């Protein structure tokens, strides 16, 4: 067995996932597709374990450019592992689905994300970066509604734009440094700034974040699980690789962590609520990368690892709710624990992880980031992250659990989720608890060695107080009917800039252009008519030039003109 695995040494796990995805796409038999969806991640995991030594594998020498398709180091290793794990969990979760497009796309998407984190150069990164965009869009298109089609197109446009910016920035970077290697970049040059913006577009930087709450709620039930796992976390990896220790990231991350609070509170779509909570979670990681240092990067990696799993679990729960009830609107749900108690249990486990309750994975991951900020004397950042934690993470988790499963009983009596969905959720829930209790397992895969103990009395006590206090505030708001939730409303976000303002501007510009064109046409027409009329008046048989002039008058005018010419010639210098 060991020998069988060792032949995979140096083979990128990404190829297993991509190959399985392509085969699944080509396969008309759902049983075969499901087998491939399980075997792809298992093969990838075997390759991940087989390549024990860090180093660069899969080198392609193309003359002027050398591509490194498989760079294994502490940073890429942890991201690849969680991507492979979640692709397997999703395969289990999606066993009930019979959709050729999404089955294949999910695997190729996972494989391209793994390929991107293993990329040692920017051209390889660009290839997989764009492949994640192309492979993930079908997860939204598969819904088939006009709304999903439009959301999918918007999503695809933004993802491709990010790739184009990445390539442009990489080309500038290569021309400046003479290297395509993907390592520390920094923001000291225009190339670095463009690269950071390209990555920030995928990471959900403020004002560039709008595609997340736009696209995730419109994907299929399985699609939103997959979408939540890869694209944004890949961008976080790229930031950790290229921009660790950049102070600007602390400010950007704090804004990302705080501003979603209002959207988490007011959004009626529970998947959109989770999408905003995801931005908050990404903000924590961006702050950690900005803080830098071993503790900061470990904090970002731990949060990415734990966050991929617990956010996927929450999206899985809502996928099950969507499958059974046909809606994830908070105002249309309630009392589902009566008919979906097992799913409710998984929702509670996921929520406790999101909230960072002690003994759950969110706690051991989030504490690292708070400690990194505290350790590096970013006290304001530390304080604001505590606020953001209470305001966004905890309220979002409470909101999903309360409005879907408890709250006002809407009389929905539906079947429990399929057992395969339960199995997928159970795997994710197990990891949430396992990593929270057995935290050395999580810390052991982080990029840097450290001796950190999350379960100190002060941190457990403080976090418990924060958690209970937020529950009290949330409960009081519900009890006194102060929670601002309205059905059938759209809460405007930055996407208004292009979906409404941009669209209206383009339409207004087109209308103005048409008016201008018409006006110019009218003026030109009037001028041409005027000239034509004047010429007609001059040259027509009845025109001025056709009249007969007296010969004496003509002789007089000729003499005057001749005198003028003579005078000019006389006074002109020789």
């Amino acid at each position, binding site marked *: 067995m060991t020998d069988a695995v060792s032949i995979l040494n140096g083979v990128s796990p990404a190829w297993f996932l991509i190959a399985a995805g392509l085969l699944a796409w080509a396969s008309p038999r759902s049983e075969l597709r499901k087998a491939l969806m399980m075997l792809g991640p298992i093969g990838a995991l075997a390759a991940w374990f087989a390549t024990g030594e860090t180093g660069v594998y899969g080198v392609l020498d193309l003359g002027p450019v050398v591509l490194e398709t498989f760079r294994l180091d502490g940073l890429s290793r942890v991201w690849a592992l969680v991507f492979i794990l979640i692709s397997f969990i999703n395969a289990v979760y999606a066993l009930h689905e019979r959709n050729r497009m999404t089955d294949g796309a999910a695997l190729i998407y996972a494989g391209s994300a793994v390929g991107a984190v293993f990329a040692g150069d920017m051209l390889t990164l660009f290839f997989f970066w764009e492949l994640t965009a192309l492979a993930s869009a079908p997860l939204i298109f598969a819904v088939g509604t*006009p709304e999903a089609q*439009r959301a999918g197109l918007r999503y695809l446009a933004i993802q491709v734009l990010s790739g184009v910016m990445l390539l442009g920035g990489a080309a500038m970077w290569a021309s400046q440094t003479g290297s395509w290697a993907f390592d520390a970049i920094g923001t000291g040059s225009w190339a670095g700034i463009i690269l950071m913006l390209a990555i920030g577009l995928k990471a959900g930087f403020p004002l560039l974040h709008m595609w997340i709450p736009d696209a995730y709620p419109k994907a299929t039930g399985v699609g939103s699980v997959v979408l939540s796992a890869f694209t944004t976390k890949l961008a976080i990896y790229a930031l950790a690789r290229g921009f660790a220790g950049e102070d600007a990231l602390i400010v950007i991350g704090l804004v990302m962590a705080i501003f979603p609070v209002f959207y988490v509170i007011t959004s009626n779509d529970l998947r959109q609520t989770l999408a905003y909570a995801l931005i908050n979670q990404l903000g924590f990681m961006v702050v950690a990368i900005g803080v830098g240092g071993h503790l900061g990067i470990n904090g970002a990696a731990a949060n990415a690892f734990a966050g991929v799993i617990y956010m996927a679990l929450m999206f899985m729960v809502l996928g099950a709710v969507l499958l059974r009830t046909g809606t994830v609107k908070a105002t249309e749900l309630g*009392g589902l*624990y009566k008919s979906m108690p097992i799913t409710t249990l998984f929702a509670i486990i996921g929520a406790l992880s999101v909230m960072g309750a002690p003994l759950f994975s969110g706690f051991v991951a989030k504490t690292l980031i708070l400690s990194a900020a505290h350790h590096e004397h970013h006290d304001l950042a530390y304080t604001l992250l505590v606020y953001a934690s209470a305001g966004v993470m905890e309220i979002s988790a409470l909101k999903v659990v309360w409005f879907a499963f408890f709250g006002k009983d809407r009389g929905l009596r539906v079947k429990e989720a399929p057992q395969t969905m339960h199995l997928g959720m159970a795997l994710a829930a197990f990891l949430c608890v396992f990593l929270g209790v057995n935290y050395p397992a999580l810390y052991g895969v982080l990029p840097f060695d450290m001796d950190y103990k999350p379960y100190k009395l002060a941190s457990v006590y403080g976090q418990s107080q924060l958690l209970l206090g*937020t529950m009290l*505030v949330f409960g009081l708001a519900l009890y006194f009917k102060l929670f601002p939730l309205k059905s059938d*409303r759209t*809460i405007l976000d930055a996407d208004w800039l292009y979906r*409404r303002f941009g669209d209206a501007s383009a339409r207004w510009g087109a209308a103005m252009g048409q008016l201008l064109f018409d006006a110019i046409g009218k003026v030109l027409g009037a001028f041409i008519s005027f000239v034509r009329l004047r010429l007609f008046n001059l040259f027509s048989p009845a025109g001025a030039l056709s009249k007969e002039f007296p010969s004496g008058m003509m002789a007089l005018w000729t003499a005057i003109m001749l005198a003028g010419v003579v005078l000019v010639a006389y006074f002109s210098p020789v």
Partner: protein
Amino acid sequence: MTAPRDSKAGMHPLARPLSGLSSPRAGLIALIVIAVLVVGGFALETVLSDGGLSKYPEVYGAYELLPLAAAAVAILLGWGLVWLISRPGDFYSRAAGDVTEGQDD
């Protein structure tokens, strides 16, 4: 087809022992329990801690209280936000003119 509210008909067998959870009284009891735990927690900390409300040498005061107040303010501000920037559900699809009246969106 919906079942009568607070009825055990159609309930999952595993949920039947918990059917009382949806009553208003259960919610109130849960709220009171949480409130007692919160107040008790801060009281215990005040009594036990040497330097007043401090957990870390560098961080003083019941700093968890402020985020709670902030969360409460954020929830209340949500009403203003809803009033200010919420639009009808079909705001984008209809306003952009890419969906005609009567077309399913």
